[in-house]
């Protein structure tokens, strides 16, 4: 979905009446398009105004205790994870990196860059979408290669969008296998070097965060790729955040199975 198509749907999106399929496509676009994202946030705030215009109703007094109790129950510590799976082989990461390079998608080309004089934002948006599409295809090819070596492997991928005031982008890939250690690959682009080191976390649906990597170095354009293995099962984590040295979130995004993300 390109910028004009997304802008066309944003009012209905803000008012909560687009179907899930369109909402997913719009959210995917908003993850990397800062201009549309700003428009979306403004419209969402306007739409949320409606909620407070309603004549107040009075909930029963005991509802508060029920709500607090319900949240408290589900936020209780989870049972210990199942015993460690068989560890050893580390397939995937090297193959993926090699495949991406082979696909001609160096770091600078993987993610949007802003070299040279200012150009039409619509052209930038189009180029970004094109690059994102190429990135997606390269990932798919790379995953096929990894799967050939480890048929039990599962891959989740996602793009990382910047928080306000940060002009950066990123992408993430997790590889989970029954027979080998789970692995994480993170690409970042245009991160400020003065905010090193960056910490990379995976977050599960309950809000539990797990540090998976640390970015200690960036090239002169603020780009790098970090990859590593994780001493735990990553399958329950569906979101990644990147914090700068000050602890502020600078990048974040959802991860979804590669087969559904294309």
């Amino acid at each position, binding site marked *: 979905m390109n910028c004009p198509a997304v802008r066309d749907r944003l*009012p209905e999106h803000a008012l909560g*009446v687009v179907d899930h399929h369109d909402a997913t496509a719009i959210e995917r676009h908003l993850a990397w398009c800062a201009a549309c994202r700003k428009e979306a946030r403004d419209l969402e705030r306007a739409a*949320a105004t*409606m909620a407070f215009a*309603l004549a107040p109703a009075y909930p029963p007094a005991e509802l508060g205790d029920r709500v607090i109790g319900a949240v408290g129950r589900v936020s209780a510590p989870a049972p210990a994870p199942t015993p460690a799976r068989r560890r050893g082989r580390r397939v995937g990461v090297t193959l993926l990196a090699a495949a991406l390079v082979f696909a001609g998608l160096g770091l600078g080309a993987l993610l949007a860059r802003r070299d040279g004089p200012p150009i039409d934002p619509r052209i930038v948006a189009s180029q970004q979408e094109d690059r994102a599409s190429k990135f997606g295809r390269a990932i798919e090819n790379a995953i096929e290669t990894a799967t050939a070596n480890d048929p039990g492997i599962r891959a989740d991928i996602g793009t990382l969008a910047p928080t306000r005031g940060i002009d950066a982008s990123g992408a993430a890939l997790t590889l989970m296998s029954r027979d080998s250690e789970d692995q994480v690959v993170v690409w970042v682009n245009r991160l400020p070097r003065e905010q090193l080191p960056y910490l990379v976390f995976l977050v599960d649906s309950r809000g539990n965060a797990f540090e998976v990597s640390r970015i200690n170095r960036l090239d002169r354009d603020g780009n790098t790729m970090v990859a590593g293995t994780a001493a735990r099962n990553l399958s329950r984590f569906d979101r990644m955040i990147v914090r700068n040295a000050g602890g502020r979130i600078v990048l974040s995004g959802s991860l979804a199975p590669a087969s559904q993300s294309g």
Partner: protein
Amino acid sequence: MEGLLAGDDAAIRALYERFGRPVYTMGLRLLGSREAAEELTQDVFLTAWRKAARFDPQRGRLSTWLMTIAHNLAVDRLRRETGVSRPHLVLVDEVPDQPAGDEEFILMERDEALRALASLSMAEKRLIARVYFRGMTAREIAEADGIPLGTVKTRLRSALIKVRRANETKDQP
């Protein structure tokens, strides 16, 4: 939000005390029964806890984030139960001028909302209300009123921008 993430009772209670009533109000007005409104309220705060790590105060206000969760869950429930969303309608222009709540926060939020909505014409209020409170899509409204889809979309966007500008005026020191 860190307290919410940690499941801290005091943090959850503070959040509920501030937003419990508007969330319940949303449930009651859209879903039409106290039982459904109570279930919705519980679901909203559970969802907020699950998504707390995703909330970024630099991207928007907590009230916007939470009420968006509430509205989305309410509309989802309506669609799931009825196939289409046709909530018990409370049009904006049918809302009494004097709020019945007593908490300062609710009064302020409602006052701000009514001021922002006052910038809309009656037709614009009705249009937004049909979408937000009844869950009608732009296409459904276009078909019902016999006007071009593009016209409905343009009017919707224009109305939301008016509200946004009214909010911006309010936020200026």
